[in-house]
Structures are given as structure tokens and as C-alpha cells.
């Protein structure tokens, strides 16, 4: 099978790492609160799943909501900046600069301003999600094939026709790669936002497990986060395959 040939190596490596981990823990008799073995983590996962699943769904909801808001805002900002090159020149460096602020240091401020509700959480996730979209969209708009743009102008296309019929569809592949990055960030953003105070969610589960030295559960949470990120990523890839028609030439 093609799938096995392509992904077989990575899966083999993953299995190898897990086996070595299991062996190292067993041979050296590492205590479970320090580093649990993969099999122990796995059996703990099965044990906690019934109660943990509400946390998972809560985090998924939060992540998807934040991702949607963040990418929509990012997309709109990118379109506005694209339409106003002068403003783009002023704003773009500031945008890049803003990315040097670790989100986590903003968290206390957001709590002071917005309390512990949904709002500060969505702002945090939105902040991490929106930047990759802005960059990817602007990049996509800018790199529109010049001969196609020339053709559209010759044909008398208006600015909005140029955007909707050429620049936007042309930037879709770029937009999707930005969206995929944002999607992976969104799960992380959601967990971080839950650390700041929430009733449920993977972040809450993690904080509780950590304070009671349930390292195996911390690992359950970590693996769940990884799995969720991959899942959203894969979902977007499927959407991408449906949306993007007729490959680019060259």
C-alpha cells in the first residue's frame, strides 16, 4: 500500500521510541511520578477517558471557536492591508513586533481587564491564531502570478473583481498553509488559556494532575493535545483538497 510506504518509516520510528522509553523506565526502575512508562500512560488514559472526555470536548470547543475568530479577524485584516498598501507599510512591522510578545505574559493583563470568562480565553487563542493567517494571506495576495494579473487588468477587471476572481483563489494554497499552522496553535492556545482559570478543559485536568503528582495523567493530557492538533490539521487538509481545484502550474 502507498500509505504504508510513505508513512511506514515515521510509524516505525515512533514505535521504536515508545519501546525504548518503556524499556528504559522498566530497566532503571524509574518511579511513576517522575516518568511513567508509555503502557502505564495508556492504561491510565483508558481509565480516565469517561470523565476526561468532557474536558476534551470543552477544549475542542474553545480551540475551534478561538481559531474561527482568530482566522476571520486575521483574514479581514489581511484583506484591508492588501487594499491599502500605504497602511500595510506602517502596520506590518508592528504586527511582526507584536509576535515577540509571549502570549503568556499578556494573560494576567487580560484577566485584569476581562475577568475569568470566555472573553480573555478567546482573545488569547485568537491572538496566536491570527498572525499566521495574516502573513499567509498577504503573502498569497502579493504573489499572484503577474501574467494573470496583467490579463485581468487588460480585460478591464475592477479592483474587487481582481480580488475575488484572481487574488483570493490564487492565495488559497497559501491561506490553507497558514490556517493549518493556526489550527495547531489553537489547541495550545486553548490549553494555556485554561491554565488561567477555567471550570473544565484539558488545561484544568493538567493543572490538577500536576498538583497531585499524577505524572501519568499529565502525559495523558500531553498526548491528547498532540492527537487533537494532528486531528484538526488532518481535517483542514481534507477541506483543502476539496476546495483547491486544478493544481497550480509551474
Amino acid at each position, binding site marked *: 500500500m502507498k500509505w504504508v510506504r510513505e508513512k511506514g518509516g515515521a510509524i516505525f520510528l515512533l514505535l521504536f521510541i515508545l519501546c525504548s522509553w518503556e524499556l528504559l523506565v522498566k530497566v532503571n526502575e524509574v518511579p511513576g511520578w517522575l516518568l511513567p512508562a508509555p503502557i502505564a500512560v495508556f492504561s491510565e488514559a483508558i481509565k480516565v477517558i469517561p470523565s476526561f472526555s468532557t474536558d476534551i470536548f470543552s477544549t475542542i470547543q474553545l480551540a475551534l471557536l478561538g481559531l474561527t475568530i482568530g482566522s476571520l479577524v486575521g483574514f479581514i485584516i489581511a484583506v484591508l492591508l492588501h487594499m491599502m498598501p500605504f497602511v500595510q507599510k506602517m502596520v506590518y512591522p508592528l504586527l511582526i513586533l507584536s509576535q515577540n510578545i509571549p502570549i503568556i505574559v499578556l494573560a494576567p493583563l487580560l484577566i485584569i481587564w476581562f475577568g475569568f470568562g470566555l472573553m480573555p480565553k478567546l482573545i488569547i487563542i485568537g491572538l496566536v491564531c491570527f498572525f499566521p493567517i495574516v502573513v499567509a494571506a498577504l503573502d498569497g495576495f502579493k504573489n499572484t502570478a503577474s*501574467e494573470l494579473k496583467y490579463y485581468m487588468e487588460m480585460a478591464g477587471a475592477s479592483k474587487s473583481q481582481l480580488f475575488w476572481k484572481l487574488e483570493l483563489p490564487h492565495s488559497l494554497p497559501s491561506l490553507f498553509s497558514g490556517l493549518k499552522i493556526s489550527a495547531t496553535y489553537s489547541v495550545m492556545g486553548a490549553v494555556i488559556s485554561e491554565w488561567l482559570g477555567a471550570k473544565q478543559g484539558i488545561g484544568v485536568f493538567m493543572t490538577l494532575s500536576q498538583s497531585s503528582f499524577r505524572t501519568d495523567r499529565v502525559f495523558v493530557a500531553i498526548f491528547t493535545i498532540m492527537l487533537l492538533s494532528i486531528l484538526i490539521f488532518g481535517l483542514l487538509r481534507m477541506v483543502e483538497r476539496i476546495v483547491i481545484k486544478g493544481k497550480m502550474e509551474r
Partner: protein
Amino acid sequence: MLLKMNHIEKSFAKTRVLNDISMHVEEGEFVALLGPSGSGKSTLFNLIGGMTSPDEGTILLNDNIIHGQKGLIGYMPQQPSLFPWRTVIENVVLVQELSGKPNYEEAKEWLKKVGLQDFQNAYPMELSGGMKQRVAFIRALLSKQNLLCLDEPFSALDEFTRIEMQKWLLSVWEDNRKSILFVTHSIEEALFLADRIYILTKRPATIKEEIIVPFARPREESLLNANEFFQLKQKLFNLLRDEIKVGE
């Protein structure tokens, strides 16, 4: 008179590209613009297409000055410039979409006429070079403008495909008769296709000579081997040689 250009001048920075160009295209006429590459042929199309305005002189379409007005001509560039995410038929109606409602029935009919009906839902990447140019030509044709401007449309094709495409273009044009302004740097192509040829000098381009092509229509491939074709080709070659010799 459909298109009339009077004493056009155009410079970029300090380089003068077009120098006192006067020419015209009649209704239903096939005019070729023959000149060495870099002489300013595409610049001339930019002016007609409204992408830039002339420094001096006037361009009239149907007796109206059209400086800086886009979308008044049908245009076919050197690269087919089809949109890769649009199917063939969606590409064909693109220009119609810009000014109103696309007519898919008409587009289908045209694709059938040129033997591309099986490809109407294919994407451009599935087509050969010649097929892409046919689609690009139909797209220009369906823009419903009376003047079609073709900028070296076949120069990127291989020799055999090129001759096939020239014959194809003639057959479509001979029962459609829209005015065509055809840019080329191939003497044979100009002679085989056009009613009239303007020969441009090298930069800064002026019109060196206007040639009326006497061959009757419909034209067949055998014309390419006829004696009078060869003689005219020789004449044009001598005219152009001086322009290419100094070589830029």
C-alpha cells in the same frame, strides 16, 4: 475605421520606445505587426489596452479616444494565462463575467466548434500547449469586443503545433471575421495570416513599411511553398535584416 493610432510616442524614463507610430485597422481586417523583439510591440498593445497612455498622439477606437481605458479590446497574451483553478469552460467565460452574465451555452458551442467539447470540464494543466492557446483565443473571442489583439500567441509553441495553430486560427477567423491585430516576430506567420503587415524598426520603433499581402483567402498550407510567398518573404527578410543586424 475601427482602430486608428496617430503619431504615437512613448518613452520609459529616458528610453524612447515608440517614435511617431501611425497605423490603423479596418473592420474585419487581419493586420500583423512585425518587428524584432524588444522593438516595442507589447508596449503598443499596452497603449491600446489602456494599461498606459501615450506621451504624444491619439488612439481612437470607433472614433473615440480610448487612452487609459481598459477592457475595450479582446486580448490574447503570449502565455495562455488560463486560471489553473478554473475548468476550461469557466476560463472561457471569464471575461464575460467581468461585464455581465456569462453565456455558457455559447461557450459550449464554441468549444465544440474547435473540438474541445470533451475538455470543457478539464483543468488547464490537463491540456497541451496548443489546446491552451485555443482556449485563450476563444476566451478573447467571447469577450465580444470588435478588435482582438494577439501578442505573439504562438511563439512559445513548437514548430508543428505552431503551423497547426495558424491554420486553425485562419479557419476560425475566416468564418468569423473580427478585426485582428496580431503581433509577431515571424515573417512567415505574418505573411500566412495577415491582410496587411506593418513592419517596425528596432527601438525606438517607427513604422518602416506597410505591406499589403496579396494572397487570396481561404489560405491553405500549400501557400507556404508557393513561389510568390517565397518572394515576398525574401523582401520582408531584407527589410527586417537591417533592423536585426545591429543586434540588441
